[in-house]
Structures are given as structure tokens and as C-alpha cells.
């Protein structure tokens, strides 16, 4: 069974990039363009890992982590952050996110972080 990853990012470009990378490496990919869609997608697809952007319209990543973890305490969420968002990432970790990545993303690091979550 391929592992399923939910990519949450409001930047279509980033989703496209990450999705391509993950598919090439054998993951199944589901996408969401904001936190609210992510919560719905999580319910619909039950992904193994969520890659969660932080700054997004409608519902940001932190709120989405809280919403998802509130219902699914075992959800594995990796925050996708930028430098300078340490405080938010810390909040997200407190809310149950498992790990984080810092942009600009290094493909190796994304894959390593995902591998860590699914193994």
C-alpha cells in the first residue's frame, strides 16, 4: 500500500512541486489549498501524513492542526514553515504536530521527514 500524504499549501506552485516529488517517490498525494479544505480532505482520505503550510487564507495551518488533532489524536502532521515562524511552529508542535520543515524545501529533507513519519 502506498502511503498517502495530504499536501496543504495555498501556493499552487508549492503543491505542484511537492506533489510531483512525492509521486515520483511512490507516495499517493491529496491536496488542499487551505486549512479548512485540509480538515475536510483529512476526513475524506485519512492520509498517513499531512504536510501543513502555516500561512494560509480562510484557516491557517495552526488552526488546522488543532482541528485535525482534536478529532484524530494520532494524525501525523509535519509543519511546513518559513524562517521567522518559530513561535507558530512551536505552537503547532504543542498542538500535536510531529515535525516541521523550513522553506525553501530541500527534496531530500521532505522525503526524510515523511519517511520518519510513515516508518
Amino acid at each position: 500500500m502506498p502511503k498517502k500524504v495530504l499536501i496543504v499549501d495555498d501556493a499552487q506552485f508549492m503543491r505542484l512541486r511537492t506533489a510531483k516529488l512525492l509521486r515520483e517517490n511512490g507516495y499517493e498525494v491529496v491536496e488542499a489549498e487551505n486549512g479548512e479544505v485540509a480538515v475536510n480532505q483529512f476526513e475524506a482520505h485519512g492520509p498517513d501524513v499531512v504536510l501543513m503550510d502555516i500561512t494560509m487564507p480562510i484557516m491557517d495551518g495552526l488552526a488546522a492542526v488543532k482541528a485535525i488533532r482534536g478529532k484524530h489524536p494520532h494524525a501525523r502532521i509535519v509543519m511546513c514553515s518559513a524562517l521567522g515562524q518559530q513561535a507558530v511552529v512551536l505552537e503547532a508542535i504543542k498542538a500535536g504536530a510531529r515535525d516541521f520543515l523550513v522553506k525553501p524545501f530541500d527534496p531530500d529533507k521532505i522525503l526524510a521527514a515523511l519517511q520518519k513519519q510513515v516508518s
Partner: protein
Amino acid sequence: MASFEFSDEDLKVFFEETEELLQAMEDDLIGLEKGDEVEARLASIFRAAHTIKGSSATVGFTAMATLTHSMENVLDRLRKGQTNVSTAIVNHLFTAMDVLRKLTADAAAGRESNEDTSPVLGLLEMDLEEDASAAPAEATVPPAGAATAVAVTAAPSAEAVVVAATPPWAGLDLDEFEKQALQDGCARGDTLLGVRVEFHPEAAMLSVRSYQVYLHLEEKGRLVATRPTLSEMEQEKSGAVLTAFLFTLEDPKVLAGEIENIGDVRLALVEPVGPDGLFRAESPVLTPSAPAAVSTAGTAVSVGAATPAVVAAPRPTGVPAARSEAPAARSVPPAASAESGASAKAGMRTVRVDVELLDNLMNLVGELVIDRTRLAQSMGLLDKAVDSQDSDVTRELAEATAHVGRITTQLQEEIMRARMLPVETLFKKFPRMVRDLAQKCGKQVELIIEGQDTELDRGVIEEIGDPIMHLLRNSVDHGIEPPVARASAGKPPVGMVRLSASHLENHILITVEDDGKGIDVEGVKSAAVRKGLVASELAARMSTQEALQLIFVSGVSTAEKVSEVSGRGVGMDVVRRNVEKLNASIEMDTTVGVGTRITIKLPLTLAIIRALMVQAGSGTYAIPMASVVETLIVAPEELKTIHGAEVIVNRGQVLPVHRLTRLFADTCGGDPRALVIVSVGGRKSGLLVDKLLGDQEVVVKNLGLFLGSIPGLSGATILGGGEVALIIDVQSLLSPHAAMTAREELIA
């Protein structure tokens, strides 16, 4: 560091998305300046800058990333209320956005950008420095994204080695509470583990990493003390090393392995210690695999023999490849392609299509429309020619023909729909323009935009932009009065300019309206007389509508002085030319002191028009239905001649009559019996032709480069029978000039 490879398709998405974000940013900046939903707008601008930063850094457009980072810093301060939204800051952000646009354009064109970002970075830096005393920590964030990571890192690896050589937890500065907890625990006989974690020196967000370690330790036992403390982590004061004491029954080696699995951990040492924070004599035996690990790490060697430490799979910075490649290789499932295909299907309902492809489709469907007409005509002939006994075949063929005809119509409609874009794509650039213009003119203007969802053919949208821009300019520069003048006229100081789009049958109406001072019709007349465009007696007799048409004549401007913005009297001329090119009409309505409204009536598409087909002399012509008022069959005696010009009395009005053959110098003669009444700028004229052939949809084809633009003709079309008909451009054929001359003669 490995990098992504980007295909042209990927980059296209990046550029399109960036363009969208910049547009959203612009809209929000304008709203922000108005003080309208400030918080939401700041958040939205921040998000846009943030997204561009992330994407551009990923692609490697460093200048864009640096600039957006700087913007983000300023926006963050605005968001937190540490700085107030001032015109200066908004202007700086606008400038930054413009520079970003140029950088994007250069990058999209694949050329090295010579755009210098340092002036605008300086401006943004200045914004940050204001009120710096209020929040010094925030203001000192360096603009370069990558540099921050290094700055955060406290301990370079060399230093870490030295520290690791002495038992790290021995010198830990514990407070009384912590010391007490340690002693109490040890007195009960609990196992105390000392933990030392070293992070990669270049790792980002060490406070989060420290917190992850903290969380893990807390889960595994009773955590007595950590350095940094939890509150230091929360204040983002973590360094590259974390030390901790923990009462637990966990195996130190296993625990070290777990900690090592947290991101960016370079080294994790876990071993039992005494209550004084020193190692206990009965330390666990070093596992056989560990020595090798220790030697590769090179950092914990001095701890080695004397104080056996558990060193879990150290990850020296130099060799990350083995680790990161392995998971990728391992995780390839056999059914990868099928799975990803299915999920891709769920996610995508739209595709991006090249405009050229749409244009080609439209052309092809145009050919089909011609063939449809041809088929129908041939069917008619066949029907007459074939005997009734073959009627089965004919009927079959007729049905097929009719079906093909219907499908062609549907196809044409669908493709036309695919070519439609909301006018928003065009309108969105105006708020910024009006804002800049108003600032330059020292006026206060609110631009209201309505009907943004109205859809128009993209060809029309491309052409109508300039005319609308001219009209808006005129409204702001000439229409809207300065605030003081408005106040004394009893109007609100902020002028209103309304730009709206709406549907009206097969047309789109675009209206530019202002509540300014209106157009002084007498002023227009005298300006035209002064420029020698109209005789003064004629001017005196002109109706308001006629006089307003003079505005569209090149060289007429009532502005007292030429400003930077407009007033040279060329704008409206351009407006008329562009509007005419689109087969559109323009109407003007003005009241002195109250305002002006200009309406452009546009066809839905440029590619296919409904036209009245007529025969005149040796040619077949198509007259766009948009300008046809009515058709008459005339007897020769109904035509009168006044001063050498032919006229006809129609519904009590004297209308000038033009023979189409004469206008196109067709010497074939012909037998003119039909009159097509057309309307140009609200003025009617008659076009005398031989025969009316009926109305049909014609596909407009350009006359091509050889012929170029011919006054009176807007293109050609191919008819069902294969012959070519010329499409008449009524407006340029009977321009107000020509009509006026006719009228002048008439009156004289």
C-alpha cells in the same frame, strides 16, 4: 543540498500564481490605504508576500525572496500594531510591489534582471527602524532569508566538541527547586539519566527542535530540568545544545536512538548520573556497536573510555546522503503510477489552455460555420433537383445536415464561452491607476467597480483596456474637481468614479461615470471653432449630442492647461478609434456640475458577427447588424437631391443617402432599389444598395497584411458558396466628419 528541477510548465504555474498574488496584494494595498478592513487586508498582503517568498526561494529567485522577506517584516509590524499604516509605508509597499513585478517579468522572460532592489530594501528597512525602540528585537531581523539560520545558531561545531569532552550536566546551573527534585528522586532510588543533545549548527528553529526533544523526554519519564528551560524555548532562546535530567526506567540506548530520530539532531548522549549531576560508578556497559559510532562522530571521543556513553548513530553533517536516499528508495510501492493517477483525477477539474489553442479552435469553428451555411444551401439545391422517389436519401441527408448544423452552432457557442474572461481581469488594474492618478492630481477619488463577473471575449478585453483607461483618466483629471472646489459646490470632498460592466442582449455595456463638473458643451464648441475644426455658425446650431461628438475629434480639449496626465486632446480620439475597431458604439451623457457618463456598447465577440448581407454593383457586402436601424425598398423618385447630395425623407427626417457602389468606386453601375438605414453615433444615414440578401452570421477574417486597414472596411468573410464578401465598417465609412460635411452642405 539537492534542488528541485523545474520544467517550463512548473515555472509557468509559478509566474501565473505570482502574478495573481501581486494583483491581490495591489487590491489589498489600495483597500488598506482607505482604511477599509485593515486587519484582514494586512493579513492577506502578508500571506501573499509570504507565499511569493516561499515559492521564489524554492525556484532560486533570490532577489524576489529577499524583497518579499523585507516586506513581510514591515507587514508583520503593521499587523501587530507596532507601526501605524501611513501613506509613506503604503507607498513603500507599492514600490516594493512594482519592483517585484519587474523582477517577475524579467525572470519570466528568462533574462538577467538589472532591477536594483537596494533602494526599496532601504525604504522598507527605514520603515522597520521607525519606532524601533518599541520592539528592538523585531526590527533587527536581517532581510536575507538564509542568513537568519546562521545567526540563530549559538554554538558552532568546534565549540560543541569541547563542551562534550567534559560531562555536560556536571556544570549545569540548577535552581533550588530542581536540585531538591533531583535529590528526592535519587533518595527514592529512581534512575536518573543525563541527556545531552547537540543539533546541527546550521539547523533552523532550534527552539522548536529543543521543544520536540523536551516533549519526547517528558513522555518517557519525570523530567526534572532542561537547559534551555521551557520558557526559554518559548522565547525562542534555544541554542545548538540541549541538556536535561530525567527520572525514567527507559533504556538509555533506546532513548538516545529515539531522540536521534528527531530532526536536526546531530548527537544524543544519554547516560545514568548521580544526584550531584555526576556520572555514577555503575554506568551501563557500552554496546558493541557504539565505539564505531563514536569514532565516526569525532565529537564524543574524549568521553569514551573513562565514562562510557551511549552514542546513538551520530549523524555528522558531512554525510547526510546515505540517510536521506534510503527512505526514498525503500518507499516506492509497486502500484505507484495507478494510485497517483486516481488521486490526480479527483483533484483536477480545470486545465490551463494556451490562448493560441483557443484562437485556433475559434478559427476552425469559423470554417465550420461557413461550411454549415454551404451545406444548407447545397441541400436546398439538391432538394429541388432530385426526384421525389429519391426523397428517402434526401431526407436522410437533410436530417444529417441539420444535425451537423445544430452541433456546429453548439460547438461555436461552447468555444466562444471558453474564450470568455470576466472583465475583472481587465478592471483589476484600474484601482491602482486611479489611486496614483488622484494622488498626482491632488484629488480624492473613490473608484467603484461593478459587474466584474461580466464575461467578454478575450479579444475584446485586450482591445478595450486602453479606451477605458483614457476615460478613467479624463474623469479623474478633468471630471472630478479638487476637494476645495467640491466642498464649495456642496459636494462631498471625495469624488466618485464608477466603472461598471453589464449585459444587454448580445452586447456588453461598459460605463465610466463620474460625479465631477461635467463637460461644458459651449466650451467644447468654442475649442473646436478655435482649432478651425468647425465653422462658428455650424457650431452655434449644433445639438448637445452633436457637440459632444466633437470631443472625439483629434485636437479638441477643453482643459486650460496640459497636465502630466491628460489634456492634450488626443485621448478621446484614441478612444473612438479603438472603440470603432471593435464594432462598438460610444455614447456620452453629461450635465454641467453634476457629472459625465460615457457608455461603450461592445459586441460579445469579435470573431463572429451578425450581418445584413447586401448586393451592390459587382460585390457582396456584409453590414454589421449592430449599426443597422431598418431597411426600405425605395423607388428612384423618392430620392431627392439637395445641392448635389442625395437625401431621403424617412419618418419625417431628412437623411443623407450614400450609394455603396460610389463609396467603393465600383463602376459596375447596378440597379439600386434597397436602402439600409444605419446609425453612427446616434446619427442616421442611408446606404443605397441593389439587393438585400438577408442576415446571417459571418466569420470575420482580417484583410491581411497586404491590404492593411482600409477605411470603410473592417474585414472580409467567406460565404456559403465560397465567394468573399467585404464587411463594412459603417463608422469609418460615414465618420462624423463625413456626416457633418453632408449636413453642413445641407444647411448651407
